[in-house]
């Protein structure tokens, strides 16, 4: 866990440092044009001091990391504000969308997967398989675009943003949360659909394995009703792999929500990260990448703990 986070921080720092002409050096170059004015020289010197530009990269890395540990992520040049003040609400919304989309994809995948397994090779099973394949093949941004296009040309609605206009800049309140819930299902659905297809396949496969086992035959021989029999044992066993796959579902979902937010212009990390990258506002971009990765790693850890809790057969030594 800790080594992973160190690796992530190095990677984010490399990304911050990579662009040859970053915002800071542009700014310094601009300031140097006004040489002679003492204010300009002073500001250049202050910037150099603050970011340790005269020191080697390793030193700068430690300056950045120690700042990070104290909750100081540097300044955004674009917004002229500390990164801290910009980032948290957007991160929280990204994570909300990610979690909602995982929940939503399970909600869809459960009934379909169970139906597919219990009615193997039926017509609807084939339909579900085909839809699953299409779900994997249509990239999230395209799906978002199609939904937006459909809503605009058939219902004359613009599917953009996460809030109604009157709530967009309002402070958080109960009404605003309700408004959020009204809007969030669209991005959550779009992001979750790719995962849904995979989850259906996994659930169907596991359930098929379980249904062939002897305890099912025994239960059936004892005259248990079919519905009770399926839900009581095989389904419970088949659900385990779904919890264990959160680990790889979460990175996909976070990636998906970033790009879907760009397309739908949601007030989450996506558009701001893109903007920061395009304008080379690297401290903002680096902090986003660092925090998104950190949260994903933490989420994976939580899913491991959940798995150990839900399945007594798995215990870490």
């Amino acid at each position, binding site marked *: 866990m800790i080594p992973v986070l160190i690796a992530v921080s190095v990677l984010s720092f490399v990304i911050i440092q990579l662009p040859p002409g970053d915002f800071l050096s542009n700014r310094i170059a601009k300031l140097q044009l006004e040489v002679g004015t003492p204010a300009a020289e002073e500001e250049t010197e202050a910037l150099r001091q603050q970011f340790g530009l005269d020191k080697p990269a390793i030193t700068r890395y430690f300056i950045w990391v120690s700042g990070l540990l104290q909750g100081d992520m540097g300044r955004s040049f674009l917004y002229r504000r500390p990164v801290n003040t910009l980032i948290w609400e957007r991160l929280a919304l990204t994570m909300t969308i990610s979690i909602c989309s995982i929940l939503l994809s399970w909600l869809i995948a459960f009934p379909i997967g169970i139906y597919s397994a219990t009615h193997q090779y039926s017509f609807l099973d084939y339909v579900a398989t085909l839809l699953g394949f299409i779900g994997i093949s249509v990239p999230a941004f395209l799906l978002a675009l199609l939904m937006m296009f459909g809503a605009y040309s058939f219902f004359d609605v613009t599917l953009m943003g996460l809030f109604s206009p009157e709530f967009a800049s309002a402070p958080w309140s109960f009404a605003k949360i309700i408004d959020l819930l009204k809007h969030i299902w669209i991005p959550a659905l779009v992001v979750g659909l790719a995962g849904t297809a995979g989850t259906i396949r996994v659930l169907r496969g596991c359930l098929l394995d379980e249904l062939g086992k002897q305890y099912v035959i025994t239960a059936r021989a004892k005259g248990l009703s079919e519905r009770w029999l399926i839900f009581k044992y095989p389904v419970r066993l088949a659900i385990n792999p779904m919890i264990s796959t959160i680990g790889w579902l979460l990175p996909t979902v976070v990636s998906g929500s*970033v790009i879907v937010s760009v397309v739908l212009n949601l007030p989450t990390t996506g558009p701001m990260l893109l903007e920061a990258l395009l304008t080379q506002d690297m401290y903002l971009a680096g902090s986003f990448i660092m925090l998104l990765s950190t949260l994903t790693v933490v989420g994976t850890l939580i899913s491991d703990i959940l798995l150990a809790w839900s399945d007594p057969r798995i215990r870490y030594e």
Partner: protein
Amino acid sequence: MNRRRQNESVESFLVASQWRLMWWKFRKHKVAVFCTGLLVLFYVMAVFCEFVSPNDPRERNSGFIYAPPQKIRFVGQDGFSLRPFVYPMKGGVLDENWIRVYEEDKSSRIPIRFFARGDRYTMFGFIESDIHLFGLEDGESLYLLGADHLGRDLLSRILYGSRISLSIGVVGVFITLLLGCLIGGISGYVGGVTDNVIQRVIETIMSLPKLPLWMGLSAALPPTWSPLQVYFGMILILSMMGWTGLARVVRGKFISLREEGFAMAARLAGATELRIICKHLMPSFFSYLIVSLTLSIPAMILAETSLSYIGLGLRPPAISWGVLLQQAQSVQVLAEYPWILSPALFVVAVVLAFNFVGDGLRDAADPYK
């Protein structure tokens, strides 16, 4: 008579090689076979895109800005003709809603010909010609999928774009294969601490959200680079994150196979480690590698498309499917000129085909089951 034939078929099944068995099993998956054909067609068109596409994809035509797709017709006002034809388009003026309106001029018809002469091109850098697979008889531009905001033919642009979009998957997968086999092989064969370290690294990379990292890395590509350099840079970035899955497969297979009897026999017979790996271990899990590779090509194609779409990948004048889709960012434009979205159909078709082929290969990969 009948029994003899049956015996023969059983016999041929028993002596058939692994590859032959796999082919027989793969053939049963009809959808996968069809999709293989489709992919071959797409790749052939991508290789010969100059010849296949009816127009020059970079030629701007101010008279056909956002022109709609032309319909291929056999039946017109003056009866049926075996040779397909189109009506010439007129108009292109903005109406009161600032939308361009075109109408067909039904008085004259332009026949479509195979091997028609049109825009000049140079294929592979040395074949110069002006003969296209099909085109209009009078050498004018044919807009089968409509035109974009500069009046360029969308079909030709999609065909040229397929060269970049489709090859990025293949070249990227090749690098993925190298990295995955090398690192996974070392991890599985050496074992011990090396294995442990490599596995932790793989887990780290797998637990990171890829897209933000890809975005960060491709934003770091210098803007002064030529499209070709950006193209290879993108491939490198995409495969740097993509090798982990493959490395896991390779490692798992190595660990289970290196203790098998035939590996031990080769070792006792004095074969070098390299020979054991290349001659005995690799072929026995090669089929799994192919499956894994087939399934990672579409992921690469999608990644390139997504990155180019949001403007962090390839940039115009390079033509790729993602670059073409950049035009479709505004819903208002999309609602008026929906054919701008047609590159997406190609993306989905190719990715779907790859997934089906991978599915068929996975069923066929272990023919002894």
